[in-house]
Each structure stands twice: as structure tokens, then as C-alpha cells.
């Protein structure tokens, strides 16, 4: 019985190019030789006992337990820097961000989890961000927004406990304030003027923006459907015309000429 498993493959031997650097491995199967009835039984039983030795080894060594008791070990639980849990804005020591509202991240996001709105009346510069909305509920944590951002505004941080009771709260406003970027703010000498240019933003206040967007989307979808239907009708009409034209020429070549005209 054991010979079978070590025998060379009979069908379709591996082509030579596969052998290359290492070659194909066959055989060396740790197969229990059951050629002798009694001996085979004993070997089989021994294999069972060696398995039992492995498991009892772990039972005897409680140090091998790897369970982490999660809520209790919050203090010691350290997630790596790159861990993708929640998108966050990089605010510098003054609390200023660098987002210029270039919308590269919004465009790169595969599923519209980032929605950026600009201030209607910018205080200082030409374009100022109003809200940077990130939808955790539709985010796939692909990290694309972080790597495409030319100013390093975004980062993923390890705050992974983000459950809430209302799913509308899963849309976060990431920027602390609506207003110009750090470089512009730093040019303003007067601290009062700086404060006036900045407007506080609530991290959980994004759902109004999303609802407005959804409304727009519904309207657009209706329009798209109408466009699809029109395109389909046009295609069918074109096809009908072509068919008619294909059938027609034998009978009425003049009619075709009229159509073309």
C-alpha cells in the first residue's frame, strides 16, 4: 500500500521547464505502513497517542494560552501606526489643518465615502473647506485617500471602537474648523482675526450633508434612467431602420434614398 504513494506520476509527467531550479517533489508522504495487520494496528494506535501528546502538552503549559481579554486589556493594547481603523485629519499643534480642498481624495475614493463641501463665503482665501465628511458606514478602508493626498492631511489611526446607536452618526466631520489652511492662518497676525476666520465644526454633524446628497442622487438617478431608456429606444429605432433599409432596397431603392436624405 505504501508503494502507491511514492510511485512516480504516470500521467502527464511534469514538462522539463518546470524542473528548472528545483524540480517537482513527489513521494516522502508520511504514510502509515499498514502492510502487517497487527503491526499496522499498533502503528495506528501510536499515531493517535502522539497526537494526544501534542494536545496535552498545551494543556500542561498555561503559558501557551494566547487569548487576549479584550475590554480589560485596553491599556496594553497597542495597534500599529498604519492600522486602518478610522480616518482622521492631521491637525498641527495650533489645531490648524492643511486641507486646501483640492478634492483629489474625494475623486480617488472608490465608493464616495468622502464628501467635501466648501464654504459659501470664504473668509480669507479663495477656497475654504466647510466640512470634510467621511462616511464610515460605506468606507472600505482601502487607504487610497491617505496615499493620494498631496499635503498629508489624512491619516488612518487606530481608534477602532466606533460603534454608535444611530447609524447617521457614522458620518463624521473630520475637520475641527471650517476655514483656511494652516499656512494662510499663520500669515494672519491678529489672533482675533484668526478666530474669526475659523468656524467650529461638530464631528457628528454630517448627516444633513449626506441627506442632501442622497436627495440629489435620487434626482440624478431618475434622469439617468430616462437617458438609458431614450438611448435604448434610439438604438432599437436605428436597428429597425437598418432592417427596413436592408429589406427595402430590393423593392424600393428610392425610399432608401429618401431616408438618407
Amino acid at each position, binding site marked *: 500500500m505504501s508503494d502507491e504513494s511514492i510511485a512516480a506520476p504516470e500521467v502527464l509527467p511534469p514538462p522539463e521547464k518546470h524542473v528548472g531550479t528545483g524540480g517537482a517533489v513527489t513521494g516522502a508522504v508520511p504514510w502509515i505502513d499498514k502492510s502487517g495487520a497487527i503491526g499496522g494496528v499498533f502503528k495506528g494506535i501510536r499515531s493517535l497517542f502522539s497526537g494526544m501528546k501534542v494536545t*496535552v502538552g*498545551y*494543556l500542561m503549559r498555561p503559558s501557551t*494560552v494566547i487569548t487576549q481579554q479584550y475590554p480589560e486589556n485596553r491599556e496594553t493594547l497597542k495597534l500599529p501606526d498604519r492600522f486602518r481603523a478610522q480616518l482622521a485629519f492631521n491637525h498641527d499643534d495650533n489645531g490648524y489643518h492643511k486641507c486646501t480642498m483640492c478634492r483629489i481624495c474625494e475623486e480617488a475614493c472608490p465608493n464616495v465615502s468622502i464628501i467635501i463641501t466648501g464654504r459659501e463665503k470664504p473668509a480669507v482665501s479663495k477656497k475654504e473647506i466647510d466640512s470634510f465628511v467621511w462616511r464610515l458606514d460605506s468606507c472600505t478602508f482601502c487607504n487610497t485617500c491617505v496615499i493620494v493626498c498631496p499635503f498629508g492631511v489624512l491619516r488612518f489611526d487606530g481608534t477602532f471602537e466606533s460603534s454608535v446607536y444611530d447609524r447617521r452618526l457614522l458620518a463624521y466631520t473630520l475637520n475641527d474648523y471650517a476655514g483656511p489652511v494652516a499656512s494662510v492662518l499663520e500669515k494672519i497676525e491678529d489672533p482675533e482675526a484668526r478666530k474669526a476666520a475659523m468656524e467650529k465644526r461638530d464631528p457628528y454633524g454630517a448627516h444633513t450633508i449626506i441627506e442632501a446628497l442622497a436627495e440629489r442622487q435620487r434626482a440624478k438617478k431618475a434622469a439617468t434612467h430616462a437617458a438609458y431608456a431614450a438611448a435604448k429606444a434610439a438604438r432599437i429605432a436605428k436597428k429597425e431602420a437598418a432592417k427596413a433599409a436592408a429589406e427595402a432596397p430590393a423593392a424600393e431603392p428610392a425610399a432608401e434614398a429618401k431616408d438618407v436624405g
Partner: protein
Amino acid sequence: MSWQVKTMAERTGDLLPGSPWTAVLYVLLTILAVTAFVTLCGLVLIYAERKVSAHFQCRLGPMRVGWHGLLQTIADTIKLLLKEDIVPRDADALLHILAPVLSFAGMLLVMIALPMSPSIQVADMNIGVLYVTAVSGLGVLGILLGGWSSNNKWSLLGAMRAGAQIISYEVSATLALLVVVLFAGTLQLSGIVQSQETGWWIWRAHGCGIVAFSIFMIAGTAEINRTPFDLAEGESELTAGFHTEYSGLRFSFFFLSEFLNMFVLAAMASTLFLGGWMPLHVGHFTVFNGIMDLLPPGLWFTLKTSAVIFLIMWFRWTFPRLRVDQLMRLEWKILLPIGFVNLFVSAACVVTGFYFFAG
């Protein structure tokens, strides 16, 4: 040292002529004690299984409810009691309800015959071994009915597997029991325990005992449907086998009887092969035997039973499951012939008196 065996049934008999009402009270107390024991035993076993399996697998197991999860089983019981009890629409409702009770009753009936110490035994029948074998067969009826009445193909498959498996392995288990009966010369369980006063049957019989013990353990594990013989449940094959359609209290009956069957098996194995409540005695070495007698017999029984239960758990958390035809082959082609040969050899040993401390 001689052991005064007095069962609860005998005590009731003693009480009956003088004060019949006390006797009735005593019977009621005994019933209460057995029920309490069954419940407690189930709780402990489930907790032990979860902890042992966890540490086999580098886990911690239950840790939250109570100290190291001690109250986890109680919490689970409450959860099971509060769950909705569903009887499928197309099920045979009467049998569906009856099945877990039957399964539980079979286990409970065995429980009263187990000698746990000289004074803790409900009834000591002179046909104890026969009774245990017969009554423990009731369990399979519950499983078969449960699987059939559920009106679910997976359940039916599980029940059929269980039926074939339990009835087959009963043969081998009985053959192994007979070896001990031969050596002890009695079917009475307390008699078998007392016959091991000079040593346990597992080693006194030149190998016959250990072979019979191995067969009994394998066949017993198969009878109580535990891995590697858990084909009736086979969660990766049959989702949950015969109890797929059970929920809440009825499921917990199946669950509890499965665990208590494990206790019954371990208790039987320790009674027959490991001396039951009898301390570790070696022949007539009085000093050694005297030291061993310092531990009370009840504790000896508990220790031995726990050891056997641990062994069964160890099997479960190490081995994969056999296939259904391999299971049958193991029984009819391997265990049964070995069992028969073993029985004949034992008979020869008994006739010739060729075993340790004979007579």
C-alpha cells in the same frame, strides 16, 4: 478492613416497618438528591469540558461570569430556559416532545444503580450490570425518535447513524463487561467493587483486563456519541444531526443527557475496571492498603471518574471523526473479534485461577 455497604433502598426498607411516613420522606429526599446530583454534575461537567477544551486549544475558555467563568454554565442554563421552544410545523409533535425525555430518562435510570461510595448508592440490584446495560439502551430510543420526529433529513440521517452505531457498539461494550463479571463472579455492582479489594481488575488479569478496558472505553465513547465517534451529531456533516430541530429546554435535555452519559460511562468504567470507590489496594500489603484507606471511598470514586472523564475529553479534543463505514468496520471487524477472544481467554484464566491474587 471490611466495607459496610448500605444502599438507600435498603435504608428505606429498614425504615418501612417502623415508620412508613419517614420512609416515604426518605424516598422523596433520595429522589431530590438524585435530581440535584444530576443537575450539579451536568453543570460541573459542562464547565470542565469548556475549560479543558479551551486549554487544549491555547484558549482561556469562559472567563467572564463569575470567577474564571464558574457561573457561565448557570447563565447558559438560564438562557436555554428562556429561549423559545420550537416544534417544527411538520414534526410529529408528541414524539418530538417525548424524545428528549426518553433520552434523559435512560441516563437517569442508570444513575440509581451506580455505587459511588459504600453508603451512596440508591439501589444495589443483584443483576446490576445487566440492568445498566439494558437501561442505558433506552437512550438510543430518544435519539432515534428525536431524529425521526423532527421531519428533517439531516436529523433523520443523524438518528439512523446513531441507531446503527449505538446498537453495534453495545455488543462490544457488553463483551467487555462480561470479562469483569467473569472475574468477579457476580453481576451485583457493589459485589464487583468489593471483589477488587486486593487490586483492580484492569491489571489483575494478565492483560485481559486492560484489553477489556480499552474496548469498553472505545465502545463506550461510541455509545455516548462523542468524537471521534460523534457521527450522529457530526456538526460539519449533518449540521447538528438528530437535534438540529431542537431548541431551548428540549435541546438542553439532549445536551445534559449527553454530558451525564459521559459521567455514567466514566463511573461504570471506574467501577468495573478501576475499583469504583475501593481505594488503591495491592494484594495483601496491609500497610500500603491502610495508607490508601485514609482517603474516603467517595473521593476515590470521584478521582477515578474524573480521570476517565478527562481521558474521554482528551480523545474528543484531539481526534478527528471517523467515517460511517469505517466506524462499522472498526466495530464488527476489529473490536468484536478481539472482544470475543478476550472473553475466552478470561474465562480460561478464571477457570484455572491464573490471575493475580486469585482466591
